[in-house]
């Protein structure tokens, strides 16, 4: 199928899906009034700002800790490796919501921290690190063993081999899953609402409760999340294409 024809099909399918959604809503005789959302636009913008801030900072924390987790899991020393394994298993196996509640209501008082936003962001970062750490580790391990041996046989040190041979190859394979993780994290910030952080979801809830226009309030919030996540998907696809020098054939089942 040619590219332009494929694009046409994609646009068509999208139009049909949205048409059906809107049609179904029309049949339900629901009337729409986004006036209350507009009246509360200040709340939404404030919430969106907090959501963005939380996403970015938590992601940076996640990446930084994730490097440590990956290095630990790839370590030659057994007990360090096991620490990495433990981290991933414990953090990844617990629901984020439970971690957030545990951190804010359980641990934060013990160490005398009371800032909801700080506790929330750090907890999300710690959570994200379990995933980014796994992504980094898998990316490094996906590089063929022969690459490592060729580099070492030339006299490169472990560090040089990692920096100049393994990571450049691993990096482009990490981009798609790292973007998925950023998208997931964007959505997971909505759970900060549970510990009282005023982010985008909290803004929608407040607007809905105040105006009784619940549907509109959440539709707008959902739309705003999508405005963040969909461009990220496109960016990831673009980067993947630009960095991938091995031309990939699409595989269709």
């Amino acid at each position, binding site marked *: 199928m040619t590219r332009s024809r494929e694009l046409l099909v994609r646009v068509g399918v999208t139009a049909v899906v949205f048409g059906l959604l809107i049609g179904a809503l029309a049949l339900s005789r629901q009337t729409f009034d986004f006036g209350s959302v507009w009246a509360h636009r200040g709340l939404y913008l404030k919430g969106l700002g907090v959501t963005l801030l939380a996403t970015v900072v938590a992601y940076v924390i996640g990446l930084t800790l994730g490097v440590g987790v990956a290095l630990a899991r790839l370590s030659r020393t057994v007990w360090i490796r096991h620490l990495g394994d433990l981290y991933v298993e414990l953090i990844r196996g617990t629901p984020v919501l439970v971690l957030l509640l545990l951190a804010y209501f359980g641990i934060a008082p013990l160490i005398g921290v009371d800032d909801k936003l700080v506790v929330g962001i750090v907890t999300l970062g710690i959570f994200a690190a379990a995933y980014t750490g796994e992504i980094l580790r898998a990316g490094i391990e996906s590089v*063929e063993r*022969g*690459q490592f*041996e*060729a*580099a*070492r*046989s*030339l*006299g*490169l*040190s472990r560090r*040089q081999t990692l920096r*100049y*041979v393994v990571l*450049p*190859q691993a990096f482009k394979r990490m981009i798609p899953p790292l973007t998925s993780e950023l998208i997931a994290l964007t959505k997971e910030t909505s759970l900060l609402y549970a510990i009282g952080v005023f982010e985008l979801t909290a803004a929608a809830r407040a607007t809905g409760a105040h105006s009784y226009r619940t549907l509109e309030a959440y539709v707008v919030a959902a739309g705003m999340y999508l405005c963040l996540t969909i461009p990220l998907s496109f960016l990831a696809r673009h980067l993947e294409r630009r960095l991938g*020098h*091995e031309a990939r054939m699409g595989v269709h089942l």
Partner: protein
Amino acid sequence: MSVPRVELRGVSRTFGEVRALVDVDVRVAEGEKVVFIGPSGSGKSTLLRCVNALEMPDEGEVFLDGEAVVAGTKGIDAIRAEVGMVFQHFHLFPHLTALENVTLAPRLVRRQADEATALALLERVGVADKRDVKPDLLSGGQKQRVAIARALAMEPKAMLFDEPTSALDPEMVGEVLAVMRDLAAEGMTMLVASHEMGFAREVADRVCFLDEGRIVEQGPPQQVFDAPREARTRAFLSMVL
């Protein structure tokens, strides 16, 4: 006798149940070319990989110019830098061009970024016109020649060839063997694991026949090929010649 360039002394290596090398002694003098032949799994690759510590012997020791490879004072990285290795599956760095493949190790290990030397090496193996091409776009024969240039860039004291033509299409074997022949003529010390009996006969000073991790027989190619003393050598040669 002077100190051998490469020496394995009583080297054994076991992988689980498999005894890849059993008490192997090899001495290779400077400038000598030794070709290791034998069936798959006979230990040829493991032997070569022990020379630059890609494989650690369970027992025995390996020496380069009298310096212990593993426990020596130089350190493994420094020893590896002095031994070139060419792999069956090339293992070129796919994210770098042919030229960058050659310059990477001198740049990082020796701190010399001499592009002219690297280009001369690519010239010598006949792929200078591919200097800016990534490995994906090279043929198997071209890849292996770039890999040889990459190893030579470190000015090694000895070169290890681990079945360098086994992964090549037949029409490309010749171009790689030609480069190896030139290298031999220039006096490079070479340890080659190969199934190319013609090359062994022509270039080798000595042929070693390995089976089940032991050196069964060794000697000048005429002797090993034309008048093998061991029954196992005869059996192997009758299958491959």
